[in-house]
């Protein structure tokens, strides 16, 4: 799973999968895990990113999530948009089944 980490990445956030159901989650400013990418807290530059990932790690111990990692984000019109195709697909769901995954759910 090397392809989504990028040494030159500037703005990054932390994502993982939830232990219980495996669903994609994002690390928030409150130190919580949200289902929605819009809730991510951003880190600017390598130092901030490393610090952010370190802050997320205890959730592995508490068995909330597995395999947290950093990914690169852009902001377009105030919306968070991951840079890689992979993260765009994780954020939304399979591109060939628009009826499934987060893209099909309505945020309550």
């Amino acid at each position, binding site marked *: 799973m090397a*392809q989504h980490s990028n040494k030159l990445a500037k703005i990054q956030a932390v994502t993982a999968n939830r*232990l219980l*159901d495996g669903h994609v989650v994002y690390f928030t400013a409150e130190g919580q895990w949200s289902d929605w990418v819009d809730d991510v807290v951003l880190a600017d530059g390598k130092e901030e990113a490393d610090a952010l990932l370190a802050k997320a790690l205890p959730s592995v111990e508490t068995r909330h999530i597995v395999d947290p990692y950093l990914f690169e984000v852009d902001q377009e019109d105030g919306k968070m948009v991951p840079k890689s*195709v992979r993260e765009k697909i994780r954020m939304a769901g399979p591109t060939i*089944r628009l009826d*499934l995954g987060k893209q099909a759910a309505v945020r309550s």
Partner: protein
Amino acid sequence: MYRYDQFDHKLVTERVNQFRGQVSRRMSGEMTEDEFKPLRLMNGVYLQLHAYMLRVAVPYGTLSSVQMHKLADIATKYDKGYGHFTTRQNLQYNWPALEDLPKILDELAEVEMHAIQTSGNCIRNVTADQYAGAAADEIDDPRIWSEIIRQWSTFHPEFTFLPRKFKFAVTGCSNDRAAIRVHDIGIELVRGKDGDVAFDIHVGGGQGRTPMIAKLIGEAISREDLLAYLEATLRVYNMSGRRDHLYKSRIKILVHDIGAEEMKRLVEEEFALVKKQGVLQLPQEEVDRIRAYFAAPDFETLDAECPELDAAMASNKRFAAWVNTNTAQHKQAGYTIANISLKPIGGVAGDASDAQMHVVADVAEKYSFSEIRVTHEQNLVLAHVKKSDLLALWETLEANGMGTPNLGLITDQIVCPGLDYCALANARSIPIGQEITERFADLDRQHNIGELKLKISGCINACGHHHVGHIGILGVDKKGTEYYQVTLGGSADEITSVGKIVGRAFTEHEIVDAIETIVEVYLDLRESPDERFLDAYRRVGIAPFKEKLYADN
């Protein structure tokens, strides 16, 4: 087909309880993810992009109607109403929750199914020729021997932490429909000296990063020695296979590094010692016991000719096309083998909805002795259908999106899950496959092109068999963007070959045009409509394709 006895039942039930314990120890924190991962994998549980994935074993691709109904019910109850039939003849669910897995396994166990050894560095589910027991050309039914191997390999304590995964395929005849030469061990049934069934053991094939064609190591191994020979081979691999590098740890690398001759020597030396111990000899009673389960069903005595069928074909062009492409010759007069295409134009190769699974279970019950096969090309088979029932069968299939007459044609592709689901993927596979089927949707055009095996993988792991596609497509990642590399001339039958890369990779927007160009070049240069794509390619080589594809550069 095989039915569990009390011992098989007991073991599967105990295994579910063992896994239930493992899941609960993971959830309670007694186990870390690193410790849990190999355990969950050994029971077919992956973590993909969006959720967990459960891979259910369909041993040698054989299912009963009752089992198929159960697979459908599980899809409805615990998943999102569909499943994915894979090139390893298994079924995958893409959305189960961790905590539901023990319950799903309980339900599977009710119908004699499980997820045992569908992943992990152990001996995986054994695959076999989907026409077993029906093909006119087979020496013996490969399912008998696959079941024997299944039992020997299940929870084998010595071979649970091999250097890497280990895949078996078995074919009952020299016409290889099970791609045995690209498996860690491929077994071909042959006639031994005494006229009894014997086994040619091909070792060290595989795909992935370094595709290799298996070498014939064991020749005409006898029935009683089969398991001893396999155990010897596995032991040599377990003790000598590399463990220092993930990409170098398959048995194919060992065979390649030491050479087929040396491998044969090591295996035979070990085999002689295992044989001397004598405990692994396969008794005739056990073979007979298992053989009885695979006895031919009660065929009716019928005429080989079926005028009703001829009439139906004459009046319905699409049905006639389906009979021509999707059925194969049966050994019993008046019967035929019917292939159910899971490749509708624009569909997801290998996916079936819960409703479709129920339909297949029903038609199998009605027309084919309640038995279904899954093929490594991601289709389904009803092995014993009366010719006079074909029209009714096809009409039901057609009404449910499974009557496409495209077996072996360009729209009948093997496609891995790719970046739409898979955490290891570089690029998406499914949408590329869909676009190609749409481009070639016209049936007359497909039939004019003839047999063409197109196979797509979303990364070099090659789950979509791209190396052995007549046309192979491999997804690659260039700085977060998807690209597609094309190979030509691969094949996975008795003359197995690995495809050659045609040139620089194509973008998502170029790839379908590139495939069309390749097909056009072939149509131009073939000597006659009978010259298949692969034959033409083998005659002319890669140059004419390259020239046309990169003409503008």
